[in-house]
Structures are given as structure tokens and as C-alpha cells.
């Protein structure tokens, strides 16, 4: 009886000590990323012996049967999903903003306006050398602006392609780590039987923290669908439930990326093409697609201006009386350049006019052709297109950010460490330990008095 009391007290003291350890661990990891609050799972030990009778009192104290990892898998997957969407939106906004800056800061719009206005000024006196020089200056400024825009876009494209490649490399590294964790989870599954049940061992709890943290990290790059096996091993499909498997158990499949001819990036696992619905790589892909479109439009605009000016040049006579030659070379934004720096090359007069003619016939035709082409409005449309895309992406991002914050905040509330609760636990388990010590002391006193009795 008294020895039983002593062992009950000692089991209580041990349990309280373990609970204090866990509380300490929680406090220590209060701000560790991916740490899920633990608590001790205590079970009463009251098993009767096989030879005991039905009415026997058989109390054997308490045992810590395992660690409870307070993770709600629904909240976790919700936080992961919304986080993935937010990562996509954020990288879309950042990529599109780069595209916007590249096109906007190149000053193409202003340069087009300056060029067409310099042609209008030339009409005041078509033979004037300084007015002709300002047209040439306007033309070469416009060509440089197009080139700057094309170069900035190209640099942005390279940057975005690099981000996709980096993202893919990161995903592959993370999946390799995940497969290692899977192997360990699978190996330790026997320790508790039903592995991902609430009660587990401290080692496995730590592995699961790592597993969930890796899943969170992968989902920042790409949207994934996860299936947790009973032994805690997680299988991952990339690009949603119907996407190709990325991790199954301890085997991984490598995600690869290739650059298409238009500069956008394609993703595949083996031979299976991957279409992402979330994650920063998906955002980069969206930005690349938009960049390709903007770049094509810009090329088309540059080509059309060059074509209109050059076609008109051929219909007129320049200042020397010769038939006008092409003023622009190149048909894309990157290659647009002026073929001459001489103002006299501008064919302002009607074909067949004498040298130094002040006849503005062909100049009027050029102004009319440019007015019909209306490059400023086209450029304005291009700029509005990209800034509109940035705006709508930003709005989407703000919405997704709110959803994601709400999801991660409810996950953190549920799975995170609250120092006040831990403070209470600290006091509670300290008192439990002290109480168990008191029980031991009582058992000892009783035992001593029995010894004294027999002596």
C-alpha cells in the first residue's frame, strides 16, 4: 500500500517533470517558424492484475503516453493554399511592375510626341536646317527610347526567367529534403502504430514540424496537393490534385523548366506538362506572358512607324532634290535606328522638286500618314494595358493577402505558442510536482511509522 503510494507519487512527479519540460520547450520555441505547440498526453495507470479480484483497488499513478502536436490539418492546408495564392499574386505584381517600369521609364510615349511635333514645326519652313536637325534629333531620340524599352524588357525577361529557374531548383531541393523526412517518418511509424494520430513521440512531432514546414516552403513556389498517409508520410502532387506526382513516399520526381521560343517558361515533371495555379513560379509565368505580349506590341509599333516614315520618304524629294531614302532601319523596338544624321535627308518636297525646295507636299503627306497611324494613342494603349494589369494584379494580391493573413493567423492561434498559457502551465505543473513530492513525503512518513511499530 505505502510502496504503491510512493510509486504513484513518483509517477506523478515524473509526469509533472515531463510536462514542465514540454512547457519549457514551448516557451523556447515561441517564435520558431513551423513549431507547433506541444502538450503531454497523460493517461491514468489503473490496470488490475490478472489475479486480483473484481473489487480490488489497484491504482498505479499516471503515465505520459506521448506528445500531443496541436496541429489542425485543415487549417494547415488552408494556410498553405492561401499562402500559395498570395505568393503567386505577389510575384505577378512584382514582375508586372518591372515590365511597367521598363516601358514607362523609357519615355517612348513622350519621344513619339516630340518626333511628330518636330515634323509639325518643320512645316513652318521645310527648308530650314535647324528645324530639319530637330526632326532628326526627335527621330533618333524616339529610336533610342524604343531601344531602351526593348533592352529593359529583355533584362526584365531574363530576370523573370532566372526567378523561374531558381524557383524550380528550390522546389527540387525541398522535395529531396521532404523525401528524406518521409523515409524517417515511415521508419519511426512502428513506435506509435497509428502514426499521424494526435498522440506521437517527440521525435516524430519534430519530423512532422519539418515536414509541414517543407510543404509550406514548396507551396510558396508552386501550388501543391498533399495526401498524408496514416504513417505520417506525405505524397505531393504539383499543380493541384490532378497534377503529376512530385513526391510519393521516399521517391521524388524532378521538376524541370524550359524556355519557349517566345521567352515564356514551360514546366514539366518528366514528360508530363505542369500547369501551376499558385506559387511564385506561376506569378513569374504570368508576368512573362504579359511581358511577351507588351514586347510584341512595342515591336509592332516601332515597325509601323519606321514603315510609315520610310514609305513616305520614297514618295518625295529631299533637300538635294533626290528621291528620299529610308530614314529608319530596323523593324523591331530593339533594332529601330536612324539611318542618317543629316537633316537634308528628310523628303519634304513632292517628288521631282528642285534642290532646296520649300514645297511641303510630302511633309504634309507624312504628317497625315502619322496622324492616321496615330502612334501616340497606340503607345498610350500599350502603357494603359500594362499599368491596368499591374493595378488589377495589385487588387487581387491585396484580397489574397487578406485571406492568407486570416488563414495563417487562425493557424497560428491554434498551433502557435501562447506565452500566457505556458506561464499558467508552468505554475500548474510546478504545483503538481510539489504535490507529488508531498505525497512521497506522506508515504515515507507512513512507512516510517510502520517500521517504528514493528521495532
Amino acid at each position, binding site marked *: 500500500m505505502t510502496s504503491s503510494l510512493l510509486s504513484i507519487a513518483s509517477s506523478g512527479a515524473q509526469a509533472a517533470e515531463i510536462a514542465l519540460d514540454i512547457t519549457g520547450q514551448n516557451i523556447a520555441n515561441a517564435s520558431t517558424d513551423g513549431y507547433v505547440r506541444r502538450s503531454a498526453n497523460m493517461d491514468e495507470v489503473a490496470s488490475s492484475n490478472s489475479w486480483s479480484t473484481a473489487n480490488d483497488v489497484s491504482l498505479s499513478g499516471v503515465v505520459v503516453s506521448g506528445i500531443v502536436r496541436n496541429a489542425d490539418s485543415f487549417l494547415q492546408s488552408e494556410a498553405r493554399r492561401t499562402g500559395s495564392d498570395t505568393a503567386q499574386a505577389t510575384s505577378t505584381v512584382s514582375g508586372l511592375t518591372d515590365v*511597367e517600369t521598363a516601358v514607362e521609364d523609357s519615355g517612348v510615349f513622350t519621344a513619339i510626341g516630340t518626333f511628330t511635333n518636330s515634323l*509639325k514645326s518643320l512645316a513652318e519652313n521645310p527648308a530650314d536646317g535647324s528645324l530639319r536637325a530637330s526632326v532628326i534629333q526627335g527621330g533618333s531620340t524616339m529610336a533610342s527610347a524604343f531601344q531602351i524599352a526593348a533592352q529593359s524588357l529583355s533584362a526584365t525577361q531574363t530576370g523573370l526567367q532566372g526567378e523561374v529557374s531558381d524557383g524550380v531548383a528550390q522546389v527540387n531541393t525541398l522535395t529531396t529534403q521532404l523525401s528524406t523526412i518521409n523515409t524517417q517518418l515511415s521508419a519511426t511509424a512502428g513506435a506509435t502504430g497509428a502514426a499521424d494520430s494526435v498522440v506521437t513521440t517527440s521525435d516524430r512531432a519534430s519530423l512532422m514540424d519539418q515536414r509541414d514546414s517543407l510543404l509550406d516552403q514548396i507551396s510558396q513556389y508552386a501550388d501543391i496537393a498533399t495526401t498524408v498517409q496514416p504513417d505520417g508520410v506525405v505524397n505531393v502532387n504539383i499543380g493541384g490534385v490532378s497534377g503529376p506526382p512530385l513526391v510519393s513516399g521516399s521517391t521524388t520526381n524532378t521538376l524541370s523548366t524550359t524556355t519557349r521560343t517566345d521567352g515564356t517558361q514551360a514546366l514539366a515533371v518528366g514528360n508530363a506538362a505542369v500547369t501551376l495555379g499558385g506559387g511564385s513560379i506561376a506569378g513569374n509565368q504570368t508576368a512573362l506572358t504579359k511581358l511577351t505580349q507588351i514586347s510584341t506590341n512595342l515591336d509592332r509599333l516601332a515597325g509601323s512607324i519606321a514603315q510609315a516614315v520610310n514609305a513616305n520618304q520614297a514618295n518625295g524629294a529631299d533637300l538635294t532634290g533626290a528621291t528620299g531614302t529610308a530614314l529608319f532601319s530596323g523593324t523591331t523596338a530593339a533594332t529601330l535606328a536612324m539611318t542618317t544624321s543629316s537633316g537634308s535627308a528628310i523628303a519634304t518636297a513632292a517628288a521631282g522638286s528642285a534642290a532646296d525646295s*520649300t514645297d511641303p507636299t510630302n511633309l504634309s503627306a507624312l504628317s497625315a500618314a502619322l496622324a492616321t497611324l496615330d502612334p501616340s494613342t497606340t503607345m498610350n494603349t500599350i502603357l494603359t494595358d500594362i499599368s491596368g494589369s499591374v493595378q488589377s494584379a495589385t487588387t487581387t494580391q491585396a484580397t489574397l493577402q487578406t485571406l492568407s493573413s486570416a488563414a495563417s493567423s487562425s493557424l497560428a492561434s491554434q498551433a502557435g505558442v501562447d506565452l500566457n498559457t505556458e506561464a499558467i502551465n508552468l505554475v500548474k505543473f510546478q504545483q503538481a510536482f510539489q504535490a507529488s513530492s508531498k505525497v512521497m513525503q506522506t508515504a515515507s512518513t507512513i512507512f516510517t511509522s510502520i517500521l517504528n511499530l514493528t521495532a
Partner: protein
Amino acid sequence: MTITTSTSTSSFYATAAGQLSSLQAQVNAVDNSISSGSQYATASANPEAAAQMRMLQLQDATATVDTATADRATANLQLADSAMSQMVNDINQAKTLTTQAATGTLSDAQRASIGTQLSQIQSDMVSLANTKDVNGNALFGGGVSGSAYTTDSSGNAVYGGAATSQTLAIGGGQSVQTSLTGPEIFSMTDANGNSTNVMDAIGAIATALKAGGTSAQTAAQNGLTTLSNGLDAVTTAQTVIGARESWITLNTQNLTAQSTARATAESQIGGTDVSTAAIKLQQLTTALQASQSCFVRLSSLSLFNDIGN
């Protein structure tokens, strides 16, 4: 074992950090819009407004060119106007001289002397007809380089300019001819109903007066009719020039009104409403301060401060 729900410490700090930085970002945005004077820092903040602003600014740039062109057109028209006033004076003087020559009391020598003066007026008229425009080209020759009129061997003025005057676009889709061509000013019919021009008509009278005899007086009498026709031609042309000048003035007023309207639109679309922005700034600053002191109070609440010791 039930899973308990509580507010986690890390989420408290994360939420507080998010809220404070969001408020700070808003304060910065308002501050930026006040100091820069433009409501939007980037085009993507409001793509429609940015597109409108770009087109308005392009129109501003175009209006500057239009105004310069209109000024140049006005300058040419004023040159034409003053040259034509001089022509009218010349023709009037020719009329006075011819009136003297038409009286019967004058001798042949006196008529010949008047004829010489008329010849000088003729050459003055030719040089006036060759007035240069602001670009240094022929004002009454459709803007060709060189002279509008040359004198042939028989002393007649021959037009060598372009068929039409230079046309300049002066904005608002309007264009104006900056002068008149020589034939538009000087073409006329003499007393006998023959087509001629003012310079040749004066020359013909001068030649007849110098020739002397009885026909000289008749020529002077007919010459008065001829010169009246010539005066009509030049003054009619001058009226056209005057009308164009006032047309440009009207158009320029229009452009100025449009430019003012654009400036108003620009400030409405893209400018910062300072009073609204200042109030918003005050509101945000108050909210930020309140949030900060809330955070300090809440974060100092910890059971660890009160337990034990």
C-alpha cells in the same frame, strides 16, 4: 485530449507588425502625394487617369507647336499687311500723279517727268511684291526661295512663285494660308478690259506719259480708271489678309481656352487635393499613434511579469 485554441504570441506580434506597417505605408503614400503634387506615384495606381494625363500632356506639347506656328503665320500675315499698306500708298501716289498728268495744261516734258516718277513707283511696287517672309523666302511667291517677280526684257513683271500660298496648321484642326500669291493680289483688268497686273499697268501708263503727245493725256485719263481697278485689287487682297489675321487671333484664343481647360483637367485628374490629403494624413497619423500605443500596452501584458519572484 482536446485541441485547445488560444491566441499565439507570435501571431500577436505578426498581426501588430502587419497593421503598423500597413498604416505607415499609407501615411508615406499620402505624404508623397502631397510633396510631389501628383495624386498617383505610378501609372498603375490609376491606369485610366494616367492614360488621360499622358494624352493631355501630349496635347500640351502639340499646343506649344501650334502656338509657335500660329505666331509664325501671324508674323507673315503682318509682313504682308504692312507691305500691302505700302502698295496702297504707292498706288494712291500714282493716282495723284496720273490725275495731274490727265489735266490738259501740262507740257509733254512735265508729263514725261511724271512718267519717270511712275516708273519709280512701278519698280517700288515690284520690290514690294518681292518682300521676303520670316523664313527669308518670297512672301507673295508661295514661299519659294528667290523672288516672286522678275522683270523681263520689255519691263513687264513676270510671276515666278508657287501656285498657292504656304499653308500652316495652327491647331484645332485648322490651317491658314500665311500670305497671298502675287497673282491673287495684283491681277486686274485695265480701262480697256484687258487682263494685266498692277505693276505692268503702272508701267504702261508711265511709258505712255514718257512718249508724250496727245495720246499721253488720254492714256493718263484711262490710267485713272486702271489705277482705281488696281487699288481695288490690292485693298481687296489686304482685307483677306486682315481677315486671316483675326481668324488666327480667334483660333489662338480658342487654343488658350482649351489649354486652360486642359490644365484644370490635369489638376483634377492627377493633382493632389491638398486639403483632403492633409486631413487624411492627420487621420492616418492619429490611427498610427493609437495603434502604436495599443501595441505597447498589449505587449507589456504578460503573466510572466506577475508570476513568481
